[in-house]
Structures are given as C-alpha cells and as structure tokens.
C-alpha cells in the first residue's frame, strides 16, 4: 500500500479513492454525452467492492449479526458515525430522512445502517432510538465492541475513523463523513461525500431503484 504521513491513523485508501474518483468523473462525462439521462452524484469504486463479508451485531434486531446487504431488490445506506456528533452526522442523516420521504413508496425498498465508531459511549439504549429518529423502521443500529471487526467493516467501505482523548480529557472523534449505498448482493455501488443534498440523494436512489434487477443497478453505475 501507499506510505502514509501519519502512521497512527488508519490507512486511507488513497489508491482506490483515486480510482473511484476517476471512474466517477469518466462516468459523468459518459452520461453527460447522452447515453443516460441521469448523472450520478455518488462516486463509484471499481470493481464494485464486496462489503458483506463482515457482519456486525444489529441492536435493532436483537443483536443478530447483520451483513451489509440490502433487502432483495432494494438498497442499503450505510453511515459510520457516533451519536454525540451534533453537526455532521445529523446533517447527513436528516438528508437521508428527507430523501426517504421524497422516495414515497419506493422508500420501503431502502434500509439504513448506522455503525457507531464510538461503542464506548454509544450504548444499546441510545443507538436504536437515534437511527430510528431518522430512518424509522428501516433503521439498523450496528455496534461491536471488537475493534478488529469494526475496523475490518470500515475498511471494506474505504471508511476511516479515530477516537482519541485530547489534552483536556475530552474525547475527540474523527470519521469519514461519507454515505454509502449497497445492493442486495453486498456490493458497494455509490459513495456520497458529505454535503450531498437530499435532492441529489433522492435522484441517485430513484435512478437505481428504477431497475429491473440488481444486475441493472450495477450496470448503471459501471456502464
């Protein structure tokens, strides 16, 4: 892998990110040239990474192991965050909530998984209610106390995080603020950066959901 300037931090997958960006850019060019009416806001990594190789306990499902896979014919949104996060997590999750509302009936085909990167402070009591606030019944609260499992799960998405204590004894959490889209085969289809609007989320989701099959969804992001 690439060398990194800060060895204490989980390795950012620079190479794959670059590839993903290039793909996304070329995709925009391709779709802009007229073969399709929709330009994706999300970025695509190729080949589509398989992210369902790790399962985390689902607090909203009696701690049953939850693999990152959408319901059949649907999509799964995945976010790595923590509930003490007042700014970016609720910003993105509010956009998710708005997008689900805009999708109408199709929202029933979308599930949302919130993975806590701060399991020490995020407990069973607060996590389920937290994601339920934004995603209702479609929400899954995933929490593991095993750091290796969490790290492996995050790596699949190219997500990174770190929980540190500063000089004043306050806990500081850094985390990838991306939102991910996974299909029913456990493939990572799209990565939306922080700040992608609810309208853009809705448009990408609708475009993917308007497909006959998962294969068609995959083809839409990798034409």
């Amino acid at each position, binding site marked *: 892998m690439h060398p990194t*300037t*800060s060895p204490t*931090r989980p390795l*950012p997958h*620079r190479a794959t*990110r*670059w590839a993903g*960006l290039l793909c996304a850019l070329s995709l925009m060019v391709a779709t802009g040239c007229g073969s399709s009416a929709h330009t994706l806001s999300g970025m695509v990594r190729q080949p589509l990474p398989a992210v369902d190789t790790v399962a985390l306990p689902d607090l909203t499902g009696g701690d049953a192991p939850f693999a990152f896979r959408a319901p059949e014919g649907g999509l799964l949104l995945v976010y790595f965050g923590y*509930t*003490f*996060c*007042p*700014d*970016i997590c*609720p*910003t993105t999750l*509010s*956009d998710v*909530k*708005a997008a689900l509302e805009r999708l109408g009936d199709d929202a029933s085909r979308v599930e949302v998984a919130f993975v806590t990167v701060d399991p020490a402070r995020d407990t069973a*009591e*607060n*996590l*389920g*209610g*937290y994601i*339920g*606030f*934004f995603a209702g019944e479609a929400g899954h609260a995933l929490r593991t106390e095993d750091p290796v499992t969490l790290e492996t799960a995050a790596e699949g998405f*190219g997500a*990174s*995080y*770190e929980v540190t204590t*500063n*000089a*004043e004894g*306050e806990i*500081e*959490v*850094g*985390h*990838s*603020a*991306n939102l991910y889209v996974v299909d029913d085969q456990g493939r990572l289809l799209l990565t939306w*950066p*922080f*700040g992608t609007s609810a309208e853009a989320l809705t448009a990408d989701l609708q475009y993917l959901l308007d497909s006959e099959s998962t294969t068609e969804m995959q083809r839409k992001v990798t034409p």
Partner: protein
Amino acid sequence: MTSPTSHTRRLTGFVTAALLVGVAALGAACSSDSTTTPTSSTSTEAPSPTSVPNTNAEGVTALGAWARTSPMSATTGAAYMELVGGPTDDELVGASVASTIAASVELHETSMAGGDMDDMGDSMGMMTMRQVPSIAVPAEQTVALTPGGLHLMLIELAKPLEAGEVFDLTLSFASGEQLVVPTEVRAG
C-alpha cells in the same frame, strides 16, 4: 491545538455575560480581564430580548439562527447562523442558553482531519470536530456558521429539540457586547 486558553476564554465569555446581565444599565464594556471574580451564577439565564437587542447598530448582527431537531437519545445539538460584523472587528468568545435547553454551549468547528485529504483535496477523508476558543467576526463581513463547518454545540440537552420551538441563544463578544438571538428549531 485546543489549549487551556480555550477554556479560559470561554469562561471569560460567561463571566462577561454574567457581568453584563448584572450591570446592563451601566453599559459596561470593559470587563475582559480573565481574572475577574465571577459574581453571579446566572450566566445561563438569558436576559430578556428587550434589554439586549438582537440587532445592535453598533455591533455584530445575527441572521437566520436555527438549531437542528435532535433525536430523543441525543445529548448534543448544534445551532447555526450568519454573523454580520459591525463597523469594527469583533470576536465571538462564548455563548449560552437557559438551563432548560442545554447545560452549556461551546464554539466548535468541523473540519477535515489534518493530512488526510487526498491529492484532489476533496472530502473523502475523515472529518473531525473540535472546540475553538473564539470565532472572528471582521468588520462589515459575514461569517457563516453552517453544517460541516463552524457551529455552536449545545451540550447536555435538557430535552430533545423539537421543530417549531424557539429559544434564546446569548452570544458574548470580545468587545464586551452581548447579543440575544432567537433561534428556531427545525429539521434542517
């Protein structure tokens, strides 16, 4: 970089706030010494909007203040607004709300974690949030407190913030000035 000064300065803000509440009629504007003995514990009680106007022709103006609705289980919240500088440079050094809203308010900034940006400088990397000692409000300029950037963090919410609710945020500036800002709660 969150040094002890952030704490001191924040305290100064509160002390300044408390003093100003106490002696608002005198128009005190010189209590910026951090060694000032706190004389009041009522700094979280916002003065009534009539005693300290939201828009002060001489100082900073706050526009479009809002706070996001919070989940039942969340203990923190965030408020955003635009601060428009007055004729002279000033600095936001502290903020407070009534204890029925939250225990305290801190100035925070969300930013990309240092060195983690990729070659294109985009937002693929980690974002991290840290407390800042103050937020500069240069003369005649607008400083935006927005999601993903500078914001006021509400700590230990007394209860969930619900849409439609309006609460007062009291801002304290380095100039000694104070601003009470009615803040609307909405989903975003």
